[in-house]
């Protein structure tokens, strides 16, 4: 039995439901080189590639300690360090355009018109297949998560971005709210084609010996298996109230995790933190999903989406 793994994520055709989580994979080059040496994989194994967050101007990111491991998870406070959209177009995108994989560019900004300007610049680039607007990063002071916690502010960013492009527009939401479905509805209304759920969960770490906080900003973002149940619930609840597709992520590490996200309502999934422990996690799970579907008699992976009762 051959299994049809193809999905459509808000207008973005993907040959399988896999991408990588923004910020865990750079622009793909480092992993692509590593994969190539184990010669069975290339970026083309993925349904799409999602880049690190790109902003209008270069951002230096946060000073001091940037990660800490936690039980079954990790905290990060990278702070969206990136060289800016112009550099991104001339370097990362040039290389990506030779890779034969749909590229989702993750977009960040301090103000709604900054997001819009990044997209305006990227519209000149044929290599961009879709956008993922990050209104959910806990690691920056202005912009980031502050947009994603208020339905009106979230809608304002989405409207500004929507005006700039007809390409698929994904909007990435934070779980750090009382009711994610409210934000999700506002974002759908404002013109988003799909939702990415979830960004990291706000958390902190304290060093008992120095009696200081580990991260200079205090707060950092929790990811990895520790947040999977939180992410699954966010996807499940959101899928009940929106009609646009969902890109699910948060702690995915095994093929059964993937299936659970699809059942909860995701159309596609992103592999993030899991790549740090196993750099071949994403391509391995592509193969394992086909096998799982075969064993379970599922002919078409999209049948699974939203089929949990």
């Amino acid at each position, binding site marked *: 039995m051959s299994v049809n793994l193809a999905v459509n994520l808000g207008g973005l055709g993907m040959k399988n439901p896999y991408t990588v989580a923004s*910020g*865990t*994979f*750079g622009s793909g*080059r*480092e*992993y692509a*080189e*590593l994969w190539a*040496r*184990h010669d069975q994989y290339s970026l083309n194994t993925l349904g799409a590639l999602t880049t*690190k967050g790109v902003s209008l101007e270069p951002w*230096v*990111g946060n000073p001091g*300690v*940037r*990660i*800490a*491991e936690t*039980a*079954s*998870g*990790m905290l*990060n406070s*990278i702070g969206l*360090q990136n060289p800016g959209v112009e550099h991104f177009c001339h*370097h990362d995108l*040039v*290389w990506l355009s030779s890779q034969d994989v749909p590229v989702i560019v993750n977009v960040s900004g301090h103000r709604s018109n900054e997001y819009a300007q990044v997209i305006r610049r990227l519209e000149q680039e044929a290599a961009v297949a879709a956008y993922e607007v990050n209104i959910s990063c806990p690691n920056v002071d202005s912009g980031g998560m502050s947009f994603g916690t208020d339905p009106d502010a979230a809608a304002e960013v989405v409207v500004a971005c929507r005006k700039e492009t007809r390409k698929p527009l994904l909007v990435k939401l934070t779980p750090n709210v009382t009711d994610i479905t409210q934000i999700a509805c506002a974002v759908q209304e404002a013109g988003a084609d799909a939702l990415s759920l979830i960004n990291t969960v706000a958390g902190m770490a304290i060093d008992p010996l120095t009696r200081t906080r580990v991260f200079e900003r205090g707060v950092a973002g929790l990811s*990895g*298996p520790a947040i999977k149940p939180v992410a699954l619930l966010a996807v499940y609840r959101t899928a009940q109230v929106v009609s646009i597709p969902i890109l699910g992520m948060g702690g995915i590490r095994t093929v059964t995790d993937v299936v659970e996200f699809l059942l909860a309502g995701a159309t596609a999934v992103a592999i993030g*933190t*899991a*790549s*740090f*422990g*196993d*750099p*071949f996690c994403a391509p391995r799970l592509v193969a394992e999903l086909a096998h799982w579907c075969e064993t379970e008699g599922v002919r078409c992976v999209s049948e699974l989406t939203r089929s949990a009762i």
Partner: protein
Amino acid sequence: MCEQSAVNSLAQDHRALVVRIIHLTEPSDFDSKGVQLFQIDLEAGELAAQVQPGQFVHMALPQGSPHILRRPISVYKRDIFTGIVSLLIQIMGDGTRCLSSLETGTHIPVLGPLGRGWNSGNSHSCLLVGGGVGAAPLYLLAEQLAARGAHVDVVLGAATADLLVCEKSYTGLFSSEHVHLATDDGSKGIKGFTTHVVARLMQDCTYQYVATCGPEPMLKAVVLQQPGAIIEVSLERRMACGIGACLSCTFDSTQSRLRACLDGPVFDGREVCW
């Protein structure tokens, strides 16, 4: 595009065989608060053949532990003929403790060789300064320098005599008058820090090349002591991907923000913003 030149062009995820674990501190010390050191010998032929002095590997922890990140560890020794790669590790927390209890005969994923190692050029007068477990990442460099007949002085420091676990390796390469020791309690070598020995040596000799690894305050002190020579330092940062993709391991140089895992871990000491 080219600034990401393929530094890690040989890195692979090896399934290394754990050949032996050697506990280097007395078993009685092992559960105490004291420094705990052990050596892991891994069979990984390709890695042994490819690793350059100063490069590191990213080690997965045994399955079933709650740890999701790997641990970066420098290569201490390698034997191209037997394919054995040795690592010298200090127990710092739960991850390194897990590594110390790996069972002989198991396989463990080891990603490497990673990063940019030491570059001593053709320098014929060199000083190597290792503080604590920082003596390990300098050893392959010492071997390289010995092979080409360079004049080398080595300074090794530790809290107590029994923690100077690399001494014999270095005296196997150089006569003992060139291997200088310092302990905090004076139980071996001079009583004091490596930096005291370095200051004395630098009065008598001008080194063309200095390489140092150990606690950051020591690195900084060594760099400030001799502004003239080429000084390379090996920096440690917490790492997630280990290959340059996630920006977890950055530090500031005078030029820009660099990644310890890909642009380093070895850097020009004068370019580091201390």
